[in-house]
């Protein structure tokens, strides 16, 4: 394992400290643990909290700021944060308008956030939440836990965050968050694995000519392994699945070409070149494009494509001012 780290047990802690020290005007760390909140609390608005395991940087701490999140809770690498940690975050940001949780659909995340919400409710804080599940690599059926929440979650942070900042009520924030969840789909692929520092070994292995199609953001296996193909061919495989899941035809969309941490921007742009061409060909109008590392998997060499079908409300909120370390508008 070759990494620029110190003690593996200190990775999450030092990472959060380094983030807060980089952006002292934006961020503050709670004393009680790896919870990042806005440097200046904004009263009177619905407060947004999200989080999950560490290893997805800049998610989630990088999206704390005006127009986006109020708090981000960072668990151990790839491990959901604990209820008491989430509760501390909720208590630090809670206002009379209530607290809204953006939770990615993983058994661990859902259970821990739910427990935290139960505890917060007992302390008189109203809490609502949305569960994101944009990953079309996984079947959504009544007999499974449904799709995974992946990079599309960022659109929920941005759009729900903007509505909260504008003074939307807890119900309104929940409604727009759910609308984003209903309209965003994502799929990814990877050619090199990532290594959880505490594990010391890659989470999976791929042959020199192999890639994993439909990879999860924790290195979870996807739909299948395939011979490594050209960027255009790989992009086609992902786009086909995404576009089959929602009818995007004739609509305006936001596109996110998200890097997994070890993928150079050069390759993300090459991918976006083809995404743009394919969507143009299909008559799907790209309203906004985001290219870069938003929801990573430590140093995994992979990427995902997210496509969000927009309406006027979502367009306005997507463009609304934001000032978080990793998203400025």
């Amino acid at each position: 394992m070759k990494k620029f780290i110190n003690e593996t047990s200190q990775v999450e802690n030092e990472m959060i400290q380094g983030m807060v020290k980089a952006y002292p005007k934006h961020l503050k760390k709670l004393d009680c643990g790896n919870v990042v909140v806005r440097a200046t609390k904004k009263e009177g608005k619905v407060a947004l909290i999200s989080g999950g395991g560490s290893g997805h940087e800049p998610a989630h701490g990088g999206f704390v700021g005006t127009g986006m999140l109020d708090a981000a809770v960072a668990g151990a690498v790839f491990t959901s944060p604990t209820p008491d940690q989430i509760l501390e975050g909720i208590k630090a940001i809670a206002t009379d308008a209530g607290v809204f949780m953006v939770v990615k659909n993983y058994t661990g995340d859902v259970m821990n956030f739910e427990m935290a919400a139960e505890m917060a409710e007992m302390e008189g804080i109203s809490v609502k939440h949305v569960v994101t599940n944009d990953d079309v690599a996984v079947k959504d059926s009544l007999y499974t836990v449904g799709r995974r929440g992946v990079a599309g979650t960022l659109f929920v942070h941005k759009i729900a965050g903007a509505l909260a900042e504008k003074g939307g009520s807890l119900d309104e924030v929940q409604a727009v968050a759910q609308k984003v969840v209903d309209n965003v789909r994502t799929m990814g692929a990877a050619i090199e694995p990532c290594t959880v520092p505490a594990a010391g070994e890659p989470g999976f292995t791929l042959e020199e000519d192999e890639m994993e199609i439909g990879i999860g953001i924790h290195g979870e296996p996807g739909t299948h392994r395939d011979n490594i193909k050209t960027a255009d061919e790989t992009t086609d495989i992902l786009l086909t699945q995404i576009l089959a899941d929602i009818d995007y035809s004739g609509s305006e969309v936001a596109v996110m070409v998200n890097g997994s941490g070890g993928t150079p921007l050069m390759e993300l742009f090459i991918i976006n070149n083809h995404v743009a061409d394919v969507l143009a060909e299909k008559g799907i109008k790209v309203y906004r494009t985001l290219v870069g590392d938003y929801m990573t998997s430590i140093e995994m060499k992979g990427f995902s494509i997210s496509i969000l079908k927009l309406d006027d409300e979502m367009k306005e909120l997507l463009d609304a001012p934001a000032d978080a370390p990793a998203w400025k508008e």
Partner: protein
Amino acid sequence: MADSKKVIQILRAIGSKIEEEKDYLTKLDQPIGDSDHGINMARGFGEVEKKLDDLADKDIGTILKTVGMTLVSTVGGASGPLYGSAFLKAGMAAAGKTEMNVQDFLEIMDTAIQAVQQRGKAVLDEKTMLDAMIPSLEAMKAEASEDAKTVLKKGVEAAWKGVEHTKDIIATKGRASYLGERSIGHQDPGATSYSYILEVISQQI
């Protein structure tokens, strides 16, 4: 069967076993999960260890509740709320007790396993820890009139049989469920960690 002191001794032994099997449990979590089950469990039971000295003179209920709270607040992931709820509810069932017999033990286990079912909304054959928990509990209940050693021996056997069975089935809960058919052939980490825990109890009493 066991007093507070014994319970603490067992918890210490569980901690050592989990630490010993940390890498193996993590490895099991690789093909069908995210390679952290051993790390999560070891982090949690490591924290439990630190609290045991202060619990020496407490009743079994308080001990188990403290373990539950510690697991909830340090393990994270899916196993944190699950094992955490199990110990929390077990603690409630054992409230005030300073001794437990086989009957008490089986009731406490029943409550704990119900807590896992409630929190995780899973049933048998979904390739989770329940596939070791439920059959082991049933096996133990069937022998309830025997002595503790015999009861637990049956339970451990059934638990490991359940672990074996997880290899043959498709996961429909937890992270492994994302794999669908590809989850077949792999052993469930949570069922395995539970079986180690029961094994330690069986060895210690």
